[in-house]
C-alpha cells in the first residue's frame, strides 16, 4: 500500500504548536528600554559625562561579547550584553575615566559571562562582577564622586571629571567639584540628606544611584510584564526597611532611618535591576524571597557595621553564589505528593 504523496509542503513539529508571546531577546531589550528613563534622569543630573561613561562600558561589553561569539552561538543581538554594559555604567561615578569603564565592561562580559559558557551559564551578575573588578583595580577613581545638582548650575554641559584621562594615567581631579555620597556623609560625618533629594535623585553618587522614583516606575513596568520577579525587590525592600526600622528605633542618632536606607546608594538600582537578573537569581518563588531577604540583611550589615559605606554590590554577589543551593532547598511540592483525600 503506497499512499499518494501530497502536493503542498507541510512542516512536522513537536507539540505544542502554539508559542507564548515572550522571547528572550524581547525580555532583554525590554529591560534595556526600561533603563532608558533611568539613563535620562542621570543625564539630567550629571550632564554629558553620564552618557559617555555608559556608552564606554557598553562598548566594552559589546566588543567583548562579539569577540567571543564570532564562531559560537549568535547571542550578540539578544540584548543581554547591552544590559550588562548599561548597568555597569550606571554603577560608576560620572567623572569616571572612559577607558576604565570600557575595561570594566570587557571584564564583566569576559570573566562574568563568557568564560562560564555565555548567556544563561554565569553564576554572578556580570555587571556587578565588572564593577567589583574596577573597585579593586581603581579604588580612587571609583570613589571620586562629583557633586550633582546646584553645584553645576549654569554649566550642565561640563564634564563631571576627567572622563578623557589616558589609559593607565591617573585622572586629575583639580578642576572638578566633588562631594561625598549620602551614605558617605552618613557613615563618616553622621549627617543625613533630605528625603526628597534622595527620592528625586538630586544627590551625589553613581550615575544610576540617583533617582529612586524613576527606577521604581521602570521596575513596576517590568514586573507588570513579568520580565522580573517582583518578589526579589519586594523582599529586599521589606528586609532592609524592617532591619533599619528596628535599628533606628534602638538608636535614632546612630542608625539611619529606613527611608534613607531604601533610597540612598545603589539599593534601588541593585534591587530592581541587578538582583532580578534572571540568570543569577533563584528560579523558585520561595527561593526569591530567601534570596531577597539575604541581600537585604547583607546590605544593612555592610553599610552599618562594615568598612564600606555601600554594600549592595557585595550583598548581591554573595547571594548569587548561594543561588544553586537556594534552588535545591526550595523545590516546589509536586502535585499529588503528600496529599490526603478530602470528602465532598
Amino acid at each position, binding site marked *: *500500500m503506497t*499512499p*499518494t504523496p*501530497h502536493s*503542498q509542503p*507541510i*512542516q*512536522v*513539529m*513537536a*507539540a*505544542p*504548536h*502554539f*508559542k*507564548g508571546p*515572550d*522571547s*528572550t*531577546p*524581547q*525580555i532583554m531589550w525590554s529591560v534595556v528600554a526600561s533603563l532608558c528613563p533611568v539613563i535620562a534622569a542621570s543625564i539630567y543630573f550629571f550632564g554629558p559625562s553620564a552618557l559617555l561613561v555608559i556608552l564606554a562600558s557598553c562598548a566594552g561589553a559589546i566588543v567583548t561579547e562579539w569577540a567571543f561569539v564570532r564562531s559560537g*552561538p549568535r*547571542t550578540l543581538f*539578544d540584548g*543581554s550584553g547591552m544590559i550588562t554594559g548599561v548597568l555597569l555604567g550606571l554603577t560608576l561615578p560620572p567623572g569616571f575615566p572612559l577607558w576604565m569603564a570600557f575595561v570594566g565592561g570587557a571584564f564583566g562580559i569576559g570573566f562574568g559571562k563568557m568564560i562560564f559558557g*555565555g*548567556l*544563561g*551559564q554565569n553564576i554572578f551578575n556580570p555587571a556587578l562582577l565588572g564593577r567589583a573588578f574596577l573597585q579593586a583595580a581603581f579604588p580612587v577613581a571609583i570613589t571620586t564622586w562629583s557633586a550633582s545638582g546646584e553645584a553645576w548650575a549654569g554649566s550642565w554641559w561640563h564634564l563631571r571629571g576627567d572622563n578623557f584621562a589616558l589609559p593607565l594615567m591617573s585622572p586629575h581631579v583639580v578642576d572638578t567639584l566633588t562631594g561625598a555620597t549620602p551614605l558617605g556623609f552618613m557613615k563618616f560625618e553622621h549627617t543625613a540628606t533630605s528625603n526628597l533629594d534622595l527620592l528625586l535623585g538630586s544627590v551625589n553618587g553613581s550615575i544610576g544611584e540617583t533617582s529612586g522614583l524613576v527606577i521604581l516606575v521602570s521596575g513596576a513596568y517590568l514586573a507588570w510584564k*513579568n520580565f522580573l*520577579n517582583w518578589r526579589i525587590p519586594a523582599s529586599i525592600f521589606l528586609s532592609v526597611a524592617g532591619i533599619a526600622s528596628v535599628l533606628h528605633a534602638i538608636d535614632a542618632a546612630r542608625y539611619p532611618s529606613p527611608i534613607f536606607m531604601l533610597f540612598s546608594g545603589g539599593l534601588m538600582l541593585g534591587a530592581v535591576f541587578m538582583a532580578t537578573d*534572571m*540568570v543569577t*537569581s*533563584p*528560579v*523558585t*518563588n520561595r527561593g526569591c524571597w530567601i534570596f531577597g531577604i539575604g541581600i537585604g540583611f547583607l546590605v544593612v550589615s555592610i553599610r552599618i557595621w562594615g568598612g564600606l559605606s555601600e554594600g549592595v554590590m557585595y550583598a548581591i554577589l554573595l547571594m548569587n553564589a548561594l543561588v544553586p543551593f537556594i*534552588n535545591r532547598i526550595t*523545590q*516546589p*511540592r*509536586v*502535585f*499529588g*505528593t503528600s*496529599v490526603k*483525600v*478530602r470528602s*465532598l
Partner: protein
Amino acid sequence: MVSFLSFRHGVHPPDEKELTAKLASRRMPFPKEVVLPLSQHLGAPAKSIVRVGDRVERGDLIAEATAAISAPVHSSVSGVVQEIGFWPHPSGAQTPAIRIEVAPYSPQVPRPRLVPDWQTLETKDISEAIRRAGIVGLGGAAFPAAAKMTPPKENPIDVLLVNGCECEPYLTADHRMMVEQPARVFFGIRILLKALGIRRARIGVEANKPDALAALSAACPSDLEVSVHALPVKYPQGAEKMLIKALTDREVPSGKLPSSIGVLVQNVTTVAMIGEVFETGLPLIERIVTVSGRGISKPGNWIIPFGTKIRDILEVCGGLTSDAQEVVLGGPMMGLAQGNLDTPILKGTGGVLALTRAECKTKNTYPCIRCGHCLEACPIFLNPQMLGNLAKAERYEEMLDYHLNDCMLCGCCSYVCPSNIPLSQLFLVSKTYLRKNPPRKS
C-alpha cells in the same frame, strides 16, 4: 459546596474558538474510502476478523478487542474490504489497518440493531455493552471507557465527573455536542451512574462556553444529583488531574489513578456516545470533529466517520490556504503534526487543524536564562528548567527523582519558555527512553 473550582498555575493561550464555536455540526459527505487502524485506543491493538473482499455494513464489527485494555473497531461505512496492511497512523508510525472502499450509491444505513435496555441491565452488562460498542475516551487519550468502570474494590467511586472543559484552543467539538445534544449527555450520565451504583455527578465546562452551560443547565434532570459548573478559562483545565482538583479539591496521588480517590472522569462526548449506544444500539463509528485553523479555507464542525483521510477532510473544507504550514490532529497544545495527508482520523481525534506560519510563531531557540516562567506554568509543580537541563545532558534516570513520571506533556512549559526550548518534546523523548531502558533498581 465547591469552593475551589480551579487549579494553580497553567497558561492562557488565545482560545481561537470563535472560528467555529457558532457553527452547527454537519455531516460530512462519505469519502471514497476509509482506513481504519486496528490501534485507535490506548492498550492492545484490536484483531481483524474480516478478509479482503468481505462486504461490511456501517456499524459492523471488523476487529475485536484482544485484552482487558483494548477496544473493538467497527466499520464506519458500508463497503468492501480492499486491503489489510500497514498504513500511516497519526502517531507517525505505520500500523496495521483495514482499508474499506465505500460502496457507491449506498444509503449508508446500518443494520437494524437490538438496543440494550439499560434499566434491566446489571453493572457488569452495562460496561460490557459499552466495551462492545468500542467506546474509548474521546477527549484525546482514547483510553477504553469500559476499563475505567471496573475499579478495584477497596476504592469505591463516589462521584462521576464529566469533562466538558475542552481547554485546547480551536477545538469546539465537545462544545457543539453540549449545545446540540444536552439530553443525550444526561442520558449517558444516567447510565453511567446506574452502572457505578452512585448518585452524584458533576459537569465541568470552561466559562468561555456560555451557550453550552445554558443548554446543559436547561436540560439538567431534577431526579439526578447532577450539577453543572462553570470553570475558569485556563489551559489545561481539561486535564484529568486538573479537572478533579477543580471540581472536588482532591489531588490524584502521584503515580495513582483517579479511581484511587473515588473519582471517575469521562469526557462529555464520550458520555454522549455512551448514551447513543443505549438509544440506537449503534457502536462508536463517527464523531464531531472541529476542522479549523487559519490555514483552512472553510472552518467548521463536522460529523466525520472514523478512518476518513485528512486529505478528504481538507478537500471538503476548501483545502489548505497558501500560507498553511502545519496540519495537526488534535489541539495545538498537545496534538500531533502530520506529515502525510493520507493519515486517517481516529476515535480520539477531536480536531483537524491547519495552522499558518503566523499562528505557529516559529522562533529561534536561545539558551535557558533561568527565568523560572516554566515553574510558574507547570500545573503539576514540576521544575521543567531542571528537567530540561537533565534531558539535554541525557541524564534520564536522574529525571525520575524530579518526578518526570508525573509530567503529562501538556506543553505549558514549552508554551511560556521565552528561549523557545522544546521542553515537553525533551520530556517525551526522556519518557520514551526510560520506557525502553527501564532503570535498574540498585
